[in-house]
């Protein structure tokens, strides 16, 4: 009887001990230090990975091309585990690494969403890992226009008339960096429906449109909205007149008259002032849209052996034999 009572007492003590000894706050915590997490997240978005590891052969990314891709999580996991393996020399260390790896992987999955948040000031997002996709561009458009805008969208609703951006939700970029003057790498947090590549908006540009055969035109724009006036499914334009005998001088006054003449819809009013003229000459940045096409369905990763058939599997086979 006495034994039983003491046993209960001992158990009570043990529960007390357990509730304090196992407290993460006291024991240094299960989570990895922030510094380490940040470092590994940067690795996960391939920062510091030499370019040859990303594109092993030049033919995979020829000149003037854009190549979309999925990010292979197994590859990045291996990369991170390589980091963790540093200094793990004894069996005890390896047990430690093995014990921590699942938790750390989940932690990195969560932190990964914010890989670029510090740069863009976006709000922090948590949650399980998404499928990461992205693209590489190699083009003179990258070297000639530093600061190309990249946006990725996921379709959440139908497109409304007149607004191509309706029903689209902008997605987070995990990385957007020029790896070389002509090569741009973008990583997107999820699978986008549309990717937009937009001319950098270095201020506002003014100019004319170059039509077929080298003729220059100016599209008539509505001063109230800045949008092009369309008639019969085509932009209303005016040919650009030039000063006679001069090297490419736009005859501004004549152009203003030509625009007024072209304006049969009456968007301009009776006269054209400097402000309206500037608006007519405004050149919006060009935007190229990729996507909304049939993406190839996920395929079994059938190199030659099943993806899961690794040395671990071999171990099991050997043991059971």
């Amino acid at each position: 009887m006495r034994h039983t009572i003491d046993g209960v007492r001992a158990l009570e003590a043990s529960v007390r001990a357990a509730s304090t000894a196992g407290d993460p706050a006291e024991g240094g915590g299960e989570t990895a230090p922030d510094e380490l997490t940040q470092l590994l997240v940067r690795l996960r978005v391939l920062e510091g990975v030499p370019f040859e590891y990303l594109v092993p052969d030049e033919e995979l990314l020829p000149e003037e091309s854009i190549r979309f891709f999925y990010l292979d999580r197994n590859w990045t996991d291996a990369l991170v585990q390589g980091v963790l393996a540093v200094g793990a020399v004894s069996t005890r260390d390896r047990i430690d690494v093995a014990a921590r790896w699942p938790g750390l992987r989940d932690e990195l999955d969560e932190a990964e969403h914010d890989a670029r948040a510090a740069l863009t000031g976006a709000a922090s997002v948590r949650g399980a890992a998404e499928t990461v996709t992205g693209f590489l561009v190699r083009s003179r458009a990258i070297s000639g226009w530093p600061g190309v805008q990249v946006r990725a969208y996921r379709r959440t609703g139908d497109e409304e008339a007149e607004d191509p951006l309706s029903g689209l939700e902008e997605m987070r970029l995990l990385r957007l960096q020029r790896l070389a003057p002509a090569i741009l790498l973008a990583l997107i947090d999820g699978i986008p429906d549309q990717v937009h590549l937009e001319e950098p908006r270095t201020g506002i540009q003014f100019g004319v449109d170059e039509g077929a055969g080298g003729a220059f035109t100016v599209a008539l724009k509505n001063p109230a909205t800045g949008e092009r006036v369309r008639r019969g499914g085509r932009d209303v334009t005016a040919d650009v007149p030039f000063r006679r005998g001069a090297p490419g001088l736009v005859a501004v006054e004549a152009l203003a008259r030509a625009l007024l003449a072209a304006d049969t819809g009456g968007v301009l009013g009776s006269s054209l002032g400097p402000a309206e003229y500037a608006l007519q000459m405004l050149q919006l940045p060009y935007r190229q849209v990729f996507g909304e096409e049939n993406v190839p369905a996920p395929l079994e990763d059938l190199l030659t052996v099943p993806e899961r058939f690794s040395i671990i599997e071999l171990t099991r086979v050997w043991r059971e034999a």
Partner: protein
Amino acid sequence: MSPAPGGRRTIVVHDRIEPPVVAGDYEVRAAQTIGGDARLGTVPDDVRYVRVTGPRYRLPSTEILSTFPPANSDGPFVTRLAQIALRRRTLPWERADGPQRPWLALVLLTDGEATYLPSVPVASAVTEGVRLTGVNPDGPTCSAIEVTGRVVRQVFPSRQELPFTSHVREVPLDDTELAQGDEDGWVAVVLSTRLPRPGMRYRACLISLEGQWSELPDNPPVENRFSKATVYEHVSATTIERARQPRTDEVPLAIGTSRAGGADAVARKAPAAGIDRERIAHEIPPASVGHDAADAWRTAATFTATGVTGDATVPGAAAAERAGHLGVGRGSVILDVDLRVIDPGARLLRFPVLASWEFRCEGKKDFAALVRALDVGLLGTAERPARGPTDRVPDVSDTGHVVLAATERDGDASLTWYRGPLVPRAIERRPVAAVHVADQLRRVAEDGRVELGEAAAFELGRLLALSAPSTVAALREWRRQGYVRRRGARVGGASVLEGLLTHWELALADGAAVALGRRLLETVGDSEVVDRVLPDRPLVDPLPDLDVLADPARTIATGFALPVADVRRSLDRGTRPVLADGHMAPVSAAGFDALRRDASLLQPLKTQLATSVSALTGLTRAFVIRPGGQLVPHGLEEGDAEQEAGVEAQAETAEEAETVEALFPGARPGDSVPPQVEPDPPAARSQRRREQ
């Protein structure tokens, strides 16, 4: 505007923002009259003088918000009008003759159309005969351009066009892309009217028209197409070359005297006046001056040869200005012609330049054309050209693997598969599995080649970590903290068990104790608490369990089924234990002969022995702890004399199995521990080591 992130923004464009007063000296006179009675006297006028100033000959660079095309940029600007954005919204009208006559204009000038004078006295920055009155807030010198009347007629905006070239833009300040750091969001913009041509280099000059507005062309005629690229297209290239400004006599002070000594060409003696020019003519230009300057040096020789020396034709002051500038090799490379040579007899006009920059118009393809022409595809695919050599195209599999040449560890050259992190198809992520060496990730493909993608990634991670000492330090610290924390938990758990064992006098081996402790704790606490006290992960302790030796008497007594007291007494006194008949029951009852005839008589003894051995092996930790804490002894169905040795080996195997389990979760042999001792334990162990 295209929508900025976060919704649409609006910009407002205004025709002009005129200042309430334009620059100049003003008299402010305050007069007061007292009505009614004249005898009250008069109040004298209060007169104050006010001077309104603003930039006149120079523009501080802080006043400029941006330029397009950017300074010194190359690009296909064929359809773009150059522009300059000024922070001060009223600037283009501050010295204007009227609202229709802003005093600033942006002109594009290309090679051979003007002479750029980077530093002239302000009085000579305007055309001869023009005199600007009023204060000069900008210091004694400024830059200027010298052009002919023909250039003004063909390149400068006309009187009618001038008002169109300036406007004011009001942008929302929160749109950083548009406001570009401006404080108030109001920006004055000056546009040029000239379209750049491909392959040409231009200097955009923001010039002051103050006092010279009447020089602008009036209602020039219009045509639909233009064909000219420069004003002096009809002038031959040799004439333009001849017109290049000589880098005159002051130059060699800055460049080349030290180098000249080594050159053979300058060895000959020459009159003092001529020596420098000749020296320059044969001097190889320094690399930093570049190609254009080299041309200029050569021209100097031509210049001398033809006898049209700078000193002879250029007025002294102007020559000095040019020399002073050109000698130090600053800036203007393209606007360095002497217009007197290109357009003899033309009237020359000068305009102050408040700001200027150069750009080059390159190529025909603009952003839209380039992006539209991009070849779209998936990374990890390579197309073989229908024609031409294909040896550059690598072997690519459907999965995105590429065949790469590699060198094996033994030095053999071979081909391996490689795939980077960027793949053409979605790939399923493998479940969590710890990896400790890169070789664990090597895979062999069906064709016998090795696949090294992930192994390379692992190795790369290792190398990247090792390249940064801070990373290594962070890893070590993290690991150390984990050990400390877990040790704390273990000590806590051990103290609990110690209490239990003291009270219940349980002499149990470590593994059994943990299992028992788990059972007990589960009766009071939830499983979470239990997990914290007794981690699921087996403790690995290389030291042998000493509990067996704690009480030898008990151990022996249990093993031989003898009374503990007898054994203890014997051990204490050094006497043999007394064997009672009961101990020897089978033998004494049946006799040895009978036992020899019928071996089955020994069966109870064997059973007893097996039980004892089983108990012993329990003490040497030969238990398997199943998940959930169930304590299961290894199956030892038959007693056997040789089994003791086997039990030892098995205990070790079990321990090792736990280690393996920790290293490779999931790779554990599981519950199917072979019932029999493995045939060749040392061999098995060595094999397992190899695979680790």
